[in-house]
């Protein structure tokens, strides 16, 4: 699903966020990305979502070399990805339903289909009764789940999550992680960046650790992800 080949990212100003990173996440697998803040986790996810472009190296996403994607084609690549942010990125001027419906509206789905799909997504994150609420009235955990519903409503083949549990207490964090695991079980590839090592060890999935922009082979080897190829 994701294949990084010697990818480096140097920001204007000289800061090297990623340094010759190579790894492979096979289709339908779930992987964790760990490391301290500033280790390059967010940059790695941004490169996949084409928010940033690599300085060197190649990223193959679902068989497509992202270096060959022009700016005009970027939206169509993103439609195949569900992205979840630490700070939710919800729009507070519209109810939960409209927030979740956005990817479907963008892709031109019919009204009736939007209704059923949004309800299904909200049901999966346990917020079916909140569809008319304003996001601002929801708790942090609920807002995060609205963000997840929006990321999965169009059934993307890849889910990216950047510190999805950053602001949540351990119990809620575990709930959210188990939610991701459920999506993975129905075939979605998932890559989660998190610095919560305890939680990751509890979940027990394959892990890629970053330190100062490089992959470090510490307690869990990145080779497990690579050898996990089907």
């Amino acid at each position, binding site marked *: 699903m994701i294949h990084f080949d010697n990818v480096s990212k140097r920001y204007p100003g000289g800061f090297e966020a990623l340094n010759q990173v190579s790894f492979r996440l096979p289709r339908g697998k779930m992987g964790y990305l760990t490391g301290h803040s500033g280790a390059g986790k967010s940059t790695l996810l941004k490169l996949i979502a084409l928010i940033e472009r690599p300085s060197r190296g190649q990223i193959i996403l679902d068989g497509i070399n992202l270096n060959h994607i022009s700016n005009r084609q970027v*939206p169509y690549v993103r439609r195949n990805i569900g992205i979840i942010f630490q700070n939710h990125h919800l729009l507070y001027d519209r109810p939960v339903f409209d927030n979740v419906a956005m990817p479907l509206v963008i892709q031109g789905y019919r009204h009736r289909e939007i209704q059923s799909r949004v309800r299904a997504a909200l049901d999966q994150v346990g917020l079916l009764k909140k569809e008319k609420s304003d996001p601002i009235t929801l708790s942090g955990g609920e807002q995060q789940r609205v963000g997840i519903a929006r990321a999965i409503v169009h059934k993307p083949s890849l889910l990216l999550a950047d510190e999805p549990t950053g602001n949540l207490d351990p119990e809620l964090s575990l709930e959210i992680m188990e939610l991701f695991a459920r999506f993975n079980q129905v075939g979605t590839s998932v890559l989660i960046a998190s610095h919560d090592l305890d939680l990751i060890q509890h979940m027990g999935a394959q892990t890629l650790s970053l330190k100062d922009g490089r992959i470090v082979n510490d307690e869990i080897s990145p080779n497990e992800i690579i050898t996990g190829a089907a």
Partner: protein
Amino acid sequence: MRKGPQYNTLITAYLIHHIRVLLSSLGHLTRQPLSTMMTMAVIAIALTLPSGLYLALNNISGLSAGWDSSTKISLFLHTSVDEKKAQTLLERLRLHNEIDHVSMISKDQGLEQFKQGSGFGSALQFLEDNPLPIVLVVQPIIDTKRPDHINQLLKELENDKLVELAQLDMQWVKRLYAMLEIAHRGIWAIGSLLGLAVLLIVGNTIRLDIQNRRSEIEVSKLIGASNAFIRRPFLYTGFWYGFTGGLLAWLLTTASLYLLAEPVEKLTLLYHSDFQLNGLSFGDTMNLIMISCSLGLLGSWLAVGRHLDEIEPS
């Protein structure tokens, strides 16, 4: 043909989407009624000024068309020409395609008019024979686009064997045309400037709108909205500004006309004129609204083109 219906539903979905965006951008505008109305009012006023001036010039041109009809060429025929020959000339001139109509003042009629008009009535009775020539009064068809053609016609008529003298007050006509030409250009200049002002107003309003909806644009880009999709609501907003601004401008122009109608009527009565104040025609109104819609669209297009690319998710 399996492709047909699929293709049709695609077009229908596209149209439905456009109509939905059209309406939702209108709804977006009504959510901030005060600022929306102020912007629309500014656009309307900026458009009312040139359209009002246009209307005024149109009416003055109409008025001068009335004067044009008094632009006549008097053909003084040689005294030797009798009425029969004059009549054949008159028939010939009536067929001329630059002449509206021709009338004849016979020697007797001329004398009669002279008697009444000059005050020499009794003295003229002592004349043995009528010294006046037959006069043909020619009314040319006025072509406002080429004021020179009357001059050409005048020369042509002067060269006729029967004509001794052809007379026309050209200076007057020329001056009028020159003044109308200046007024016309002036309106174009003012209109262009105010059109530019509308463009800037819409552009600036859309720019602020884009900034206010920054997070919405960012999120939309993140979940795969194409630039066209993000641009669309802003373009339609610009269209609505233009459309309602144009409609309001029409309303303001028409209302001002009604305010002027009564005093103008009084004035024309004083001049014994049958002058009629004309409002904007259907074609003029359509032009006004089309121009304002295009200005709205263009203004928003410029703003969107400049500012949408600046907003990228990070």
